[in-house]
């Protein structure tokens, strides 16, 4: 069964496009990456399936139930971390979390226990006022708020912003644990790296449309990487001449710059012939993916 299923889902704000004819399926038990640049429509999709905004046309269902008809029932089993941090004035973190728990039918003491455990794990002081918390700590409150009722579906909208690498790692582990427990996850991000680490499949959204859905393993195999080489002395241009998968090749003194898409074995074999001083291989940013991978 698909946990999330949208069919020709469109949302326009007046004439402004949010999403257009978006089809998406998230399978039960998977971590689905939802990736695209800012303004592509990730948040709009999420807010539409949560019924925070209403679709202009098309439909969406969660757990097989239409989101506009069964909103409250569906949301009982959803944990959502919004991209925008939020806080009620003058509320302590623990008050907000208890308020959040009060909406769910799960046993109260169980959720209370979850709050304490998660706070300990993420190193969050629950007695502080949310106003006084840093951006990253507020994000932690958001994470706990989204997980305290052990939802069947976790929706994360750009969750890692503001978290330091250590906490980020703990957060990823947490999500993986929840996933093992049986929760499905929709993970929206504009950073390819974190999606690659966590997700089984990834959907790429561009200008409101889902342009590609791919398994991470396929994506990695086919992914483009940016190479920056520095050679000792002038490089022999013949070395890189006939290798398929190279694009945007630029020689600049002793520096060589290019994008490569294909088997890494082929390219490493070739550059082994060069007298290298420095070698830098990077994930291309999303723009580059869009430009080169989906040309």
């Amino acid at each position, binding site marked *: 069964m698909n946990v999330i299923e949208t069919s020709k889902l469109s949302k326009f704000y007046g004439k402004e496009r949010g999403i257009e004819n978006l089809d998406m399926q998230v399978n039960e038990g998977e971590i689905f990456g939802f990736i695209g640049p800012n303004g592509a429509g990730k948040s709009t999709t999420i*807010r539409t399936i949560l*019924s*925070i905004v*209403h679709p202009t046309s098309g439909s969406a269902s969660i757990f097989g139930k239409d989101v506009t008809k069964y909103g*409250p029932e569906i949301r*009982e089993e959803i944990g959502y971390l*919004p991209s925008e941090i*939020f806080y009620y004035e003058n509320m302590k973190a623990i008050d907000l979390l208890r308020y*959040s728990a009060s909406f*769910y039918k799960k046993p109260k003491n169980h959720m209370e226990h979850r709050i304490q455990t998660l706070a300990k794990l993420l190193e969050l002081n629950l007695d502080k006022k949310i106003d006084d918390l840093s951006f990253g700590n507020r994000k932690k409150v958001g994470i706990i708020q989204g997980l305290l009722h052990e939802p069947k579906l976790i929706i994360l909208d750009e969750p890692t912003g503001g978290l330091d690498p250590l906490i980020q790692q703990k957060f990823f582990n947490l999500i993986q644990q929840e996933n093992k427990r049986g929760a499905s996850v929709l993970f929206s991000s504009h950073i390819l790296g974190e999606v690659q680490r966590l997700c089984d499949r990834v959907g790429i959204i561009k200008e409101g449309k889902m342009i590609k859905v791919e398994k991470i393993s396929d994506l990695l195999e086919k992914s483009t990487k940016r190479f920056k080489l520095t050679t000792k002395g002038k490089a022999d241009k013949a070395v890189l001449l006939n290798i398929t998968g190279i694009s945007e090749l630029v020689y600049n003194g002793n520096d060589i710059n290019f994008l490569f898409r294909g088997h890494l074995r082929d390219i490493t074999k070739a550059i082994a012939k060069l007298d290298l001083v420095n070698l830098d291989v990077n994930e291309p940013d999303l723009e580059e993916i869009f430009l080169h991978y989906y040309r």
Partner: protein
Amino acid sequence: MNIFWQELRFYRKSLLIWVLALSTTLIVFLSSYQSISSQIDVFREVVSHYPKALLLVINFRFEIFYTIYGYFGYILTFIWLAGAIQAMNYGVSILSKEVTDKTADFLLSKPVSRSRILTEKFAAGLSLIVITNICFTVTALLGAKYFSHSNFGIKTFIMLSATLFFVQVFFLVLGFLFGTILPKIKTVLSVALPTVFIFFIVASFGGILDKPDFYYLTPFKYFDPVYIYQNSGYDPKYLFALGGFVVTSLVLSYIVYIRKDIKL
């Protein structure tokens, strides 16, 4: 009921401040009743030189002014004005603050329906008004007993006091409607204050121009202390007007809010 209780918690400080402010104002006014009523001839002389328009604006009714009812009715004009601002504030902010504080996504992603959110929030706003009025009425009764040194009809007095409640309900509901219709309200006071004053000005003009039809437009004209004193009741036509307004606005609020897109 969790939203209801949470809202009450959010507003408890504001409620306390408003109750104290209204009660103090009332006590200060009532405390000068004795000196005014003992020098009623001097006062009559002074007031007769006031422009008629001013007397209308401040709802000054000489027929009963020298009684505790009349004096209280005169004070009420100012209390209504303050109470209207309080109620409008609650009505507008109780919904709009979720958007300005970016908490709307938090609330709406919970397993609650829009209509439940609206109902609990309205109930919270109404409770705040009820509590305000209970405190106000008790203060008024105690104050009047202490300062008037004469017997007075408690029923009439409570009926006068309760006019604050009706005026506040009007503005609570209006604020609520604003909160659902307007997409984003940055500061609540910038909406509440002008609205209340517009209604007050309409009331004044209605009085000055002597156009009773105007009176339907503004709750500041629904409750005439003289009428209440003489009839021991409210003017039914204005009660209907108020009831009609409340029902219409609430229905409209639900229709709008249930279909509304909550923007970031």
